[in-house]
């Protein structure tokens, strides 16, 4: 402390006023004549409407050797339709002031549309066209394939992306789609053509297995009429949804260094898999994981950043990979990726990992404190109204729930369950989520600098692979 004189009047810390109640919005659920499930949610004041589409077209449905076909299909949907060429479609959409993103992930394909409410009917018309009548012209698909091939070296060069790819390869058996890059490899993408894209579309895209979520200020919008004219005009047969394969992973404690000679930092990603949101432990795991590495005052950053200065920040998180309601109690369940990620400067890689594992061991030995638990609950529950201020954030969470087979009130209930979770449960959940001997550590960094210090830590067998 320096003795600089304080020249202002100091006042005691103020006490909070009375909280105004807030609840995660309850959507209205319905089904259109074509079988499309629709969730709608009126959010006063949100002039930019968010629409999320979920298509039941999971990555494990991609034909053998065609990893990436779901990604190319997702992109090709809006690259030319029966009414507009690819260029015209993009122009019409932007004329609405809209943005449209589509991507394929393990559970299926997601399309996100955002548009000012005044132009919602027109934008929904374009979206419906993309779903109903995509052209998949040879030349456009060929272009998207080449574009995708050009993207891959950029992803490989990015330390965080490279680490994620390696962790998946390490954790999952080679036969599992999850072991391989979501958007395919050079070898598989090369083999994708318009026939393969169309076949994937015909097999997996239909209104009966799709869901649309519409969120925003819908006052003054006759949404039923708009939907009837747009997404309601999409037709298709019915289909059984594919059973989700069980997810297994090898989390034997070990270290893999992806060699990057000369790297000034080491990207670290330490992970394994764990339960999904259907599991009763989820709220406690969320709470415990926040205490471990949710923010810069959590245990990891308190040491690695705020005491030692080894990093700009390290985070612990749980992210659902794929999930569905178990068909029977105790039936096949989904999984989430539980991980710790961040980057540390090269010379301190050994000491930083040593401290990181010490934090985990101390947590297992001594548990969380009540004060930590209280602050975590207050933050996780308290930030909800901020987090869900925009239509896009509400739509995203509602679509996640659909994608994971969760009830529409899941998020609303989660806040109540978080508030009812005690210190002991949160400790047990985070300790079993991050056991020190069952973590796969991926380090993207300069092996000549970091291999020896990392070996000395004894956190598992160390192997080095090329970048």
């Amino acid at each position, binding site marked *: *402390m*320096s*003795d600089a*004189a*304080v020249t*202002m*009047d*100091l006042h005691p*810390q*103020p006490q*909070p*006023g009375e909280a*105004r109640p*807030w609840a995660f919005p309850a959507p209205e659920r319905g089904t259109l004549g074509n079988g499309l499930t629709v969730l709608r949610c009126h959010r006063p*004041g*949100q*002039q*930019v409407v968010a629409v999320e589409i979920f298509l039941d077209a999971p990555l494990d449905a991609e034909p053998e050797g065609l990893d990436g076909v779901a990604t190319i299909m997702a992109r090709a949907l809006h690259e030319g339709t029966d009414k507009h060429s*690819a*260029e015209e479609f*993009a122009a019409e959409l*932007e*004329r*609405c*002031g809209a943005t449209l993103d589509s991507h394929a992930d393990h559970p299926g394909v997601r399309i996100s549309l*955002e548009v*000012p*409410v005044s132009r919602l009917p027109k934008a929904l018309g374009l979206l419906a066209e993309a779903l109903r009548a995509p052209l998949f012209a040879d030349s456009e698909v060929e*272009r998207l394939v080449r*574009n995708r091939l*050009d993207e891959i070296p*950029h992803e*490989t*060069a*990015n*330390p965080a992306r490279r680490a994620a790819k390696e962790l998946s390869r390490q954790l999952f058996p080679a036969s599992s789609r999850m072991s391989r890059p979501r958007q395919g490899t050079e070898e598989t993408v090369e083999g994708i053509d318009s026939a393969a894209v169309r076949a994937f579309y015909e097999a997996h895209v239909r209104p009966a297995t799709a869901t649309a979520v519409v969120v925003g200020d819908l006052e003054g919008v006759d949404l039923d009429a708009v939907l009837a004219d747009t997404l309601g005009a999409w037709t298709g047969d019915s289909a059984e949804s594919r059973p989700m394969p069980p997810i297994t992973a090898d989390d034997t404690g070990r270290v893999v260094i992806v060699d990057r*000679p*000369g790297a*000034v*930092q080491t*990207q670290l990603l330490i992970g394994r898999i764990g339960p999904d949101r259907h599991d009763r432990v989820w709220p406690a795991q969320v709470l415990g994981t926040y205490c471990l590495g949710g923010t810069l*005052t959590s245990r990891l950053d308190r040491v690695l950043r705020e*005491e*030692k*200065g*080894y*990093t*700009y920040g390290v985070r612990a998180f749980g992210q659902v990979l794929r999930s569905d309601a178990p068909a029977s109690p105790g039936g096949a369940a989904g999984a989430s990726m539980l991980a710790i990620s961040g*980057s540390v400067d090269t010379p301190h890689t050994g000491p930083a990992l040593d401290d990181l594992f010490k934090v985990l061991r101390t947590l297992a030995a001594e548990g969380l404190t009540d004060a930590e638990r209280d*602050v975590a609950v*207050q*933050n996780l*529950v*308290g*930030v*909800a*109204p*901020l987090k869900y*201020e*925009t239509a896009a954030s509400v739509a995203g969470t509602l679509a996640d729930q659909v994608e994971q087979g969760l009830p529409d009130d899941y998020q609303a209930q989660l806040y109540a369950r978080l508030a009812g979770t005690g210190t002991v449960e949160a400790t047990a959940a985070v300790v079993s989520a991050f056991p020190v001997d069952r973590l796969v550590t991926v380090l993207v960094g300069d092996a000549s600098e970091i291999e020896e210090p990392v070996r000395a830590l004894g956190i598992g067998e160390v192997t080095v692979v090329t970048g």
Partner: protein
Amino acid sequence: MGHTATAQAGSGGLTATEHRLANGLRVVLSEDHLTPVAAVCLWYDVGSRHEVEGRTGLAHLFEHLMFQGSAQVPGNGHFELVQGAGGSLNGTTSFERTNYFETMPAHQLELALWLEADRMGSLLSALDDESMENQRDVVKNERRQRYDNVPYGTAFEKLTALAYPEGHPYHHTPIGSMADLDAATLEDARNFFRTYYAPNNAVLSVVGDIDPERTLAWIEKYFGSIPMHDGKQPPRDGTLPETIGEQLREVVEEDVPARALMAAYRLPHDGTREADAADLALTVLGGGESSRLHNRLVRRDRTAVAAGFGLLRLAGAPSLGWLDVKTSAGVEVPDIEAAVDEELARFAAEGPTAEEMERAQAQLEREWLDRLGTVAGRADELCRYAVLFGDPQLALTAVRRVLDVTAEEVQAVAKARLRPDNRAVLVYEPVAAAEAEDNDDAEGTDQ
């Protein structure tokens, strides 16, 4: 708020009131009761342009120190108290300002005001060597993570250094150099605070579910006794001739995944009608997937994996139009450059079509709706217009000004500014990692 679709072009029904405390602190309040949240935003009129030679990065390093405690808030208390109250918070540093913000559940607003006042008035009573040394290391790791350890990570820094001449206040970026970060002392930080962190050098905005009278009373209570001071010198003049007058160029040989062409065009200052026209020109040329450059390079020629334009709006120096093209496998940069020049020349000669104007204006309008659609976004924009242009109300009418611009004005700015002799060009040529290192050593580059 209650604005209708057609009122979007106006202020959307939003209003803001302005106040000034006796110590010079300017205050902007805006009510919105739709969600029980309140955003606090505090802009200090200091950024990297105020830094002196040998001390680049000091404004940003100092921003980190603002989270290390003050008279009544120990250690990381600022973060702990806000997050424990269900709020979110951060601070950022740019060329022209440093901002701090908390978004709180409405009933916790007073806490955020108390915290901001405590550090504005008493930071130096808590600032010590330990915080300084720790945050110096954190910021150096921030620099490594965001710039030095990612492909093309230092492109922006290199382009800025090319586009603004040596000695110009915008020649260096806010992250600063490693050498200067190492050289900064605790006394530098103290002097920085004494010079720039004064109530009369700041604007505070509070937006959301608030009672304006009560909010103003809290602000008076917590901030009112902080003494004003006038230690601040105006920043060095950032004005430059309208065009560069020649093409500046640098070829970078680094371990990057693909060749790239990047360029910075010198554009009108923010706050002018010409800057809005430039924004529209760059949107037509390189914004989104129906832009001229995307259609030409990505769709038709198929020579680029991505191609686009961005606008860095600056008030105290010419703005920058930033071109970024990553080539497809096997494509050479001169092919890209020729196509870009052709498109820019055609655009300057013909101007935008009516449909292109409509698209570009619709895109910029949605971006504004997004920015003003959250209390935190609105609070930040109110501060921006108050600090940089002296009038927060301009934030509420910004979108109308963009929609007012004509095709002729867009063409005029393109013709005058988007020319080869008004840009700094950065060309990336990939080389293997070992080779790139050698080059760095040869040039004595700071790693």
